[in-house]
């Protein structure tokens, strides 16, 4: 005697959030049943394992049928096959597109290609996220990347509208798309301590300040309607202008003047003053060199590793506190305005604003 067929279909589609999560997490039906039993569903409700198995199978089938629709969430709202109340639709989409930070950290900045997909086995083993779940998350990244790649307009807004995601999730995806597009290096050992949320914050800063879209509409129009990919690619003109900052380290007078201005401002305000004074030229060279090299795609990729190597590591070895870093960078940025021969104030602010907030975010253990 065996159950040949067993289905339960509700007019309003019945979906258990707990089972949905297990499905998203890539549990097999049997594992899900086990997990649910351990979760105590049976204790709350007098039922046998058979009942649980039957329910889990039904739900899994439903989710599988829904998955096609979840790939283009707008369809979920006007499809006729499943009757799902709007708030449940929102839940389904939001959960489907949710991802594990540990997983995304692994693929951040990598090319979303078949090659990477092959590495998912290793990532799965490393992160403990099931392969099935890895695939779903990876495919989500790829799908969103592909859709927004062809769209004009602000990145976050595009993602939110096309995939009906919450603002937070849309911003995270914008970061992922941005990283994938610019292929930022995030996998080096030195960068391991930086979390996805740190990177997402930095991406937000870059998108909001360094891309074409960030400059504002008035500026865009003057620049030959270069609106395509305005949020995804860095503003090339701006990168060119960054080269002008080189004067800060090549002009010896300027460098000394800058140093003395910063040191005057810092004196007595921090215990790390001596180290700051000693390292000023090094650190300043580091930051300005990063700026001047950003026209090379290769150096863009190394942006974060450079930040860590050229600035964060030296500071850390000198045991600067986060407050020290903040203090230093604030004065470092502001003092440049007082330099009478330094003409590139606007570019400097645009550059340092982002660098400052990125370093603040990244400066932790």
């Amino acid at each position, binding site marked *: *005697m*065996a*159950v*040949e*067929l*067993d*289905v*339960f*279909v*509700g*007019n*309003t*589609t*019945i979906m258990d959030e707990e089972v949905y999560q297990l499905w998203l997490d890539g549990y097999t039906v049997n594992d899900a049943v086990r997990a649910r039993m351990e979760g105590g569903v049976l204790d*709350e*409700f*007098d*039922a*046998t394992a*058979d*009942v*649980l198995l*039957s*329910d889990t*199978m*039904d739900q899994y*089938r*439903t989710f*599988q*049928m829904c998955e096609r629709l979840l790939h283009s969430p707008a*369809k979920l*709202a*006007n*499809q*006729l*096959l*499943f*009757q799902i*109340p*709007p708030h449940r639709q929102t839940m389904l989409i939001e959960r489907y597109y949710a991802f594990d930070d540990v997983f995304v950290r692994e693929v951040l900045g990598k090319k979303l290609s078949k090659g990477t997909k092959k590495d998912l086995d290793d990532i799965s083993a490393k992160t403990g996220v099931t392969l099935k779940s890895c695939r779903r998350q990876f495919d989500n990244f790829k799908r969103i990347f592909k859709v927004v790649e062809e769209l004009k307009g602000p990145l976050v807004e595009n993602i939110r509208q096309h995939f009906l995601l919450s603002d937070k999730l849309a911003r995270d995806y914008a970061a992922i798309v941005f990283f994938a597009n610019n292929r930022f290096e995030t996998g080096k050992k030195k960068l391991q301590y930086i979390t996805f949320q740190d990177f997402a914050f930095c991406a937000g800063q870059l998108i909001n300040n360094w891309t074409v879209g960030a400059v504002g509409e008035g500026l865009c129009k003057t620049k030959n309607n270069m609106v395509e990919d305005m949020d995804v690619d860095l503003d090339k003109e701006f990168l060119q202008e960054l080269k002008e900052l080189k004067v800060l380290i090549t002009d010896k007078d300027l460098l000394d003047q800058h140093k003395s201005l910063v040191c005057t401002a810092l004196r007595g305000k921090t215990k790390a003053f001596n180290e700051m004074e000693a390292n000023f030229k090094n650190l300043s060279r580091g930051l300005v060199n990063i700026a001047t090299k950003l026209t090379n795609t290769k150096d863009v990729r190394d942006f974060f590793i450079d930040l860590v190597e050229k600035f964060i590591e030296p500071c850390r070895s000198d045991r600067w506190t986060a407050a020290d870093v903040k203090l230093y960078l604030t004065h470092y940025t502001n003092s440049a305005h007082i330099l009478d021969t330094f003409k590139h104030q606007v570019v400097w602010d645009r550059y340092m604003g982002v660098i400052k907030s990125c370093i603040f975010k990244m400066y932790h253990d």
Partner: protein
Amino acid sequence: MPGKLKAKIVAGRHLPVMDRASDLTDAFVEVKFGNTTFKTDVCPKSLNPQWNSEWFKFEVDDEDLQDEPLQITVLDHDTYSANDAIGKVYIDIDPLLCTEAASIISGWFPIYDTIHGIRGEINVLVKVELFNDLNRFRQSSCGVKFFCTTSIPYSYRAVMVHGFVEELVVNEDPEYQWIDRIRTPRASNEARQRLISLMSGELQRKIGLKVLEMGGNAVVGYLQCFDLEGESGLVVRAIGTACTLEKFSSGSASITCPHPSTAPPSNACNSPKDGKELVFGEELPLSSGPPTPFRALPSSSSSPPPFSPSKPCSRQSSSSDTDLSLTPKTGMGSGGSAGKEAGPLKTLLRQQTQTTLEQREFPFFTLTSFPPGFLVHVGGVVSARSVKLLDRIHNPDEPETRDAWWEEIRQEIKSHAKALGCHAVVGYSENTSICEEVCILSASGTAAILNPRYMREGCLDVGSIDHRFDDPSPPNCGFCHIPYDELNMPFPAQLAYCYQCRRQKVPDVLFTTIDLPAEAAVTGKGCLIQARLCRLKKKAQGEVNATAISNLLPFMEYELHTQLMNKLKLRSMNALFGLHIQISVGENMLLGLASATGVYLTALPAPGGIQIAGKTPGDLNNEQHVAAIQKRINDAIAKNKELYQINPPELTDEGVGSPIPEPRQRSRIFRSHSESSDELSELDLSHGKKDAFVLEIDDTDAVEDIHSLLTDAPPPAGFHSCSTETMPGIYNWTSGIQMFTSVRVLRLNNTNLTNQGLNKIFTDLCENLLKSFYFKLRSTVPCCLCHLNFTVAVPEEELVQVSVTAVAMTFDKDQNQEKPPEKATTKGGSETEDQLQFPLELSADSSSTSPQPSKISVSSLEHCSPLPEGRSRSLCSSRSFGVGSVTMVKMTPLSFLPGTRIIKYLGIINMFFIRETTSLREEGGVSGFLHSFIAEVFAMVRAHVAALGGNAVVSYSMKDCVLMENPNKNQAQCLINVSGDAVICVRETDQEQTTNTGQTCGTIDGAT
């Protein structure tokens, strides 16, 4: 040229990719009606094409309008090869032919392909212009309204109930035609879908004609079924109750409709005032002369050997235990006498009614709930079965054989009813079970006496209102009183004086197929009671097989009945409502499943307990065993009493009813006995008064019975379940509903199964299904699973299939102990509720027999006036649904939606779909295949309802779900037939209720 059909194809969306190269589709649409076809332009390279076509106009006969569906085919244009079909939409335009139903069909329809399922959606507009006076065209019956609902629909009142209408049409099944060997499965499936659509259109038209002939304008309780007889053909048949309905004006409808959320378990009670007008038509139907005496039916007349015995179902035969008729009547129920003074009166009434009713060929009613006062007495369940051998239908135009078969069965039912002293059968239904060439035809209903006054007066006259109050029996217990003669009882029963009115006799148990009448007083809550049975039979062919089945049937009926009785007693209840017994035939077994809602009717005596008797009283071991079982049973009864809150009022004068002279009837396993018997005297039952049930455990059968009795688990806390529309004892429904369909198929691998083994498997299957439902719906507690409708089938030799469609409805737990007393004041808008307050009071005070309730309800309803215009306008505006997003369409097997009011019936939904796959594994096996098919069927029903402008389907049912699979070939095919009433319902808001109440009160005051 009586009609012009216009269709416009607007757009498509979510189309499948038909051109792999471009990942796009070049779609166009063919619109076909009858033999005329129109095409749209090709919309190149789009998955969301915008055709925005002109209006395609079809000039057609209204006969065709009724029969034919509008057929819309979406295709992919291909320059070099044949165009590929994407899928089809069939639109039944019947709802547009009725002025009171929908006026336009407009909306998104799923594009359906029998191989691929739903493939995108198409937006279509359909209109109909009818030119002439329709009544002049006798071949068509446009304008006759059809309702699946088995009660008088909301916002209508029955001016007349004309009676039974039936029709059947037969045809060759395209699947079995020679051409099927050379055409594709898709073509074959589509031919079948189209044929069945045509046949049901034709059937509906023919029934409509009969209704018009009778002078009616509507069919209520319309039940259409398909018999897939395989080689021998395809039968579509339908039964219904012809009525003349009149719509309330929109304002008054809102007043007279009960609020289902609060109304007690009836839905037929919505129009109490029209009781006086609810009259049987004088112009009597077709039947010429007196009905054929059933005994004279020549049992050997029809060409296939009729195994239905024309055994006279006399009183003796049904009461004796050895002489079981092959088509046994399950006449349970009231025994009895019409007391002293009531006796002659009753005879008189019967004579009066006979004049009108007996002239009818079949005084049958497919309704299951009735306006108050309609039902006078209920006799008990009558059923008839007959086994037939199918052979090819030679001439589809003259389906005489099938007609004759049903005629025979109906005659038998009629005679059973007569034997119970009843002149009518209510809650009537018919069904079949087919396996290869053997077919079991079944019919069942509830024998009843209907109000003679309605029949006698024929047409409404004003004076009749006053007469109603002279009615001898108070309305709330009258239906329990026995309709038959006490001295000449049709079967053994114990009679007692009614526990409510104390005047007339009632039986100890009452079985019915109808819903619990609104006025009935119930103690405690009800529950689902099921009897399940499997019987093996030898594989055989032809007549031998049919004979074997015929021989098994009576035993099965008998055992199902015994099980029901035992389970009823175990729950301390005394009546069954909504009883449905299904017997299904397979190659090597018969399955029987009886479902009903058990209740404790206050008017009936308290049920005795169950006594266990050992076979050999001397044996000490045995004695202990018996005592142990007895204790378990007693404990179970006590627990059930508590669970279902059955605390009947203690009656001091219990001995009032004189002992009824009755020969002691013994039955094989149980017997009812009225005297204390010697050998059982030591087993003192706490509940066992004079009428304990005795179970002798002298054979394995009985042991098995007891086990199955005790293994039925009660629903978990917070859940209730019933097979009727609503649960007796729960009145405060909230608006949450969840309709579901579940199908489970078991494969019996073990070839050496015994009857007991099979029974256990079958019982477990049903119990596990229920447990599954409870678990899945655990988040909706407190709730009640209503209308639990189980269908069993034996699709293949070792397969057992159970399909269930039911609805989970939430209710307010805090108030479920009793009907809230303040309800009458807060919701005075519904007079039925006022009336329903009385049964409770009466049951508490059994001495008073007050006819007042009906007086109140009539007077108040008489004067209710339509609401001001402004209000009805606001109702209309509230049903304009948001454009863009998909309309939520609620579905329920019940005739109402709690918390809402039905303001318009848009027409009947009757759809038939076939789905086939040749990639079963890829679709997730049979479960995956059926799961998506059921979801697709729901989606298509919802889309059609939404396109009609509706937002709900009531009285929904899945009549057929036939699944055939061949996993080895990776193939499966499934046929599903669903039906229901598309409606517009509006939410009852507090705002509306208060204004409603105020206005109602105002008008009543003003008028009186």
